[in-house]
């Protein structure tokens, strides 16, 4: 990727005009929304797309012979195509899901169902049992950890977890010992939802390929913020979540390589995913419909397509450049405040606009409450990544995360707020108090 121009201040201000919520006040202050890593805000075009669908096309897709049904189906499949192009996939390699969590579970249960003997002869490659290994990392969001714990428990396979170093970076020197010939699948995150670092995907993919393991990439924190090309990254599966990339809640997607999806048994079963049904058995449609049982989230898919078109119009390389600047400002600014420990600050990897930190002696809930009083929205808690926090010796942290609509002025307001938080809670009290040790 050549180094693109970041968004200008004027462009960011114009973008903000598309997001009505950014002009609201919270507790008497203009909203400073730094929680896009949890859920992003939606531009008018996304809201309009959902409403337009409901007011002009709403009807059931993939069934019915009437005009609306045909047009709704076309919109639904156009949306699939838009998302497919956005991530560099073919249309039939995108499966709609409710969210990324469901997408990970879809893959885990395909393995599980294959292990139980479901699927055709081609499903053999997904069969897991004793002696087989599933590999994930200590950095993962619970959504990319617990489905694999459960899969291991159901099948007798072993879950291996690639450890982190003291800074929180993946131990690449442990790849060979943790990804062995026994590994069937390696699941890891592209961008840490706590540290904001962009993991070296190529190193993990190379090792997985060397031992014949499949690769699942959690792209929840990368797809919204970086140009993403699943073919270039050479991953077998990728999962993403619509509401983190300007889209609505209730919609996510699984990318799967065509031949893999074709060989996988279904996860959820029922209507819309079958060809022939008798009272004793059923035959299934090819992917992606095989994995889309029941009524689909049609208006949400159409709205997500509007979101990715919006992102493409701005340009993902420019968004990434904008957020790289904001991310650097966040990390450097936090590190410059006495008493703040930025998690993963010394990791030498590129990062997105996201940083988490701990202030010994002040619990993250209190930090979040203090910032909220100034209209600043951040995430507090363990961010669904307890093992990572435990590894770094903290129970919880405070996270600020940006998006294309975030400004340097907002980052600065946040940094001022963090400094004031310390003054308010610790004041004359030394930051090394026993409370800090207990936390």
């Amino acid at each position: 990727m050549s180094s693109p121009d970041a968004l200008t201040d004027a462009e960011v201000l114009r973008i903000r005009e598309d997001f009505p919520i950014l002009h609201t006040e919270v507790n008497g202050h203009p909203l400073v929304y730094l929680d896009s890593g949890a859920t992003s805000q939606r531009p008018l075009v996304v809201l309009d797309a959902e409403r337009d669908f409901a007011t002009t096309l709403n009807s059931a897709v993939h069934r019915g012979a009437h005009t609306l049904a045909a047009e709704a189906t076309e919109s639904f499949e156009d949306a699939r195509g838009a998302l497919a192009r956005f991530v560099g996939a073919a249309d039939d390699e995108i499966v709609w899901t409710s969210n990324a969590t469901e997408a990970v579970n879809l893959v885990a249960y395909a393995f599980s169902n294959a292990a139980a003997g479901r699927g055709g002869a081609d499903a053999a490659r997904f069969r897991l049992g004793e002696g087989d290994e599933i590999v994930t990392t200590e950095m993962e969001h619970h959504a990319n950890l617990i489905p694999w714990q459960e899969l291991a428990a159901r099948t007798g396979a072993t879950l291996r977890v690639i450890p982190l170093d003291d800074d929180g970076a993946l131990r690449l020197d442990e790849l060979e010992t943790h990804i062995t010939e026994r590994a069937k699948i390696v699941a890891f995150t592209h961008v840490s939802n706590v540290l904001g670092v962009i993991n070296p995907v190529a190193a993990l993919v190379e090792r997985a390929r060397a031992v014949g393991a499949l690769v699942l990439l959690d792209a929840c924190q990368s797809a919204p913020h970086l140009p993403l090309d699943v073919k270039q990254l050479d991953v077998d599966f990728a999962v993403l979540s619509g509401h983190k990339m300007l889209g609505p809640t209730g919609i996510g997607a699984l990318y799967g390589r065509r031949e893999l999806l074709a060989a996988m048994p279904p996860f959820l079963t029922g209507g819309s995913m079958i060809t022939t049904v008798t009272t004793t058995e059923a035959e299934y449609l090819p992917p992606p419909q095989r994995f889309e049982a029941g009524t689909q989230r049609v208006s949400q898919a159409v709205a997500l397509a509007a979101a990715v078109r919006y992102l493409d119009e701005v340009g993902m390389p420019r968004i990434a450049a904008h957020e790289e600047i904001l991310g650097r400002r966040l990390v450097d600014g936090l590190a410059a405040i006495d008493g703040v420990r930025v998690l993963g600050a010394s990791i030498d990897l590129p990062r997105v606009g996201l940083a988490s930190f701990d202030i010994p002696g002040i619990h993250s809930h209190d930090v979040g409450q203090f910032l909220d009083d100034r209209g600043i929205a951040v995430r507090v808690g363990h961010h669904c990544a307890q093992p990572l926090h435990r590894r770094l010796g903290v129970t919880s942290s405070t996270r600020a995360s940006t998006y294309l609509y975030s400004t340097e002025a907002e980052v600065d307001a946040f940094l001022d707020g963090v400094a004031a938080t310390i003054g308010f809670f610790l004041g004359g009290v030394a930051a090394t108090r026993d409370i800090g040790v207990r936390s």
Partner: protein
Amino acid sequence: MTSSDLQNLYQELILDHSRTPHGFGLRDEVTAQSHQLNPTCGDEITLQVHPGPDGTIEAIAWEGHGCAISQASASLFADLVEGMTVPEIQQRIDVFREAMRSRGKIEPDEELLGDAAALGSVSRYVARVKCAMLAWVAAEDALRKLG
């Protein structure tokens, strides 16, 4: 520029209790204790009730980690109920819970709750009510185990 609401939430009394909590430190001999976890933030508390020979609760002992509200609340609770009978403590827990769930509509009864009434403004922050309730829920559970 800190608002009066926030100053009210984090009164000096509350911050003091959170910095030097009372009743902190578990005992080896245990009659009844309870462990409570707030799954949204990972905060936890282990709280013991220690009955005296006359059946009143002689002491509350607890350990845990969490926000200033949860730590202060545990400390204030320990101060409040020492020397009370089980029904007296349960009454305080009920009154405190009612105030916490009131979304700011019910001022805590100072006569019954003493300094713990300072936590009253927590009830206006729905996300923080669980923090304030953690120790009280643990105590309720421990008292139940006491039989």
